[in-house]
């Protein structure tokens, strides 16, 4: 499937993946973040169940300590 990740095209072998799978595949390791699928917030406790499908617009923002 093809999706848009942070405004760039991305391709995955599977037809659909969970947010947790995407984070693993992309090696997005930093622990705190915001994830949105098609503009909708996906909370941390929804990562294992939220499905990313072909054509979805996924946005991710790392939240770095410091302020």
């Amino acid at each position, binding site marked *: 499937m093809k999706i848009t990740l942070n405004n760039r095209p991305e391709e995955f072998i599977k037809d659909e993946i969970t947010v947790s799978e995407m984070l693993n595949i992309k090696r997005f390791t930093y622990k*705190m973040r915001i994830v949105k699928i098609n503009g909708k*917030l996906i909370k941390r406790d929804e990562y294992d169940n939220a499905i990313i499908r072909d054509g979805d617009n996924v946005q991710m923002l790392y*939240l*770095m300590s*410091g*302020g």
Partner: protein
Amino acid sequence: MKFSEIKNHLAGYTVGIAGAGGLGSNCAVALARSGIGHLIIADHDIIDIGNLNRQYYFIDQVGMKKTEALKENIRRINPDTRIDIYNTELTRDNIPVIFRDCDIIVEAFDQSEMKEMLAETILSVWPERPLIIGSGLAGYGKTNKLKERTIGNTLIACGDEESETSDDLPPMAPRVGIVANMQANAVVEILMKMKDHENYT
């Protein structure tokens, strides 16, 4: 537009500031100087001498509650800005109450866990309310790495999105101040696009 007209417009809005450390104190001061009518500032911390390397406080305020010191400092800059303070730790339960009347909210925490908690709470309760996040400001230099990124219409991230503070990469006044003022700049830009108390679109 003249500054007097900008100030008159901004006087009609309420901005929430979650945290009164390096980001929150500097952002609040910039917003008060710009003429924002009402600031709601929440923090439960006390000023430590180590905070003075970047936070908008003075040596004789060490030991004071940050919210009370910041309210006093802003009063000395622009007494026309109304300041409401909450000396409390922000949680998923009290955030929707404390920031209920805000037109826009600034995330100004230090810890990434708190940043995520606030973002999840705000975006769940008010998906369309503008939220300005600070992410990535550790160390010094690398000015060109600092940027503003808009996600959707109303979520804005300011910072380099990669540097994290540590003993060897401390937060310092120049870079923290830049990001705090980027956040204030984003607030002003969004509020200037709003018609009087209409929702942001």
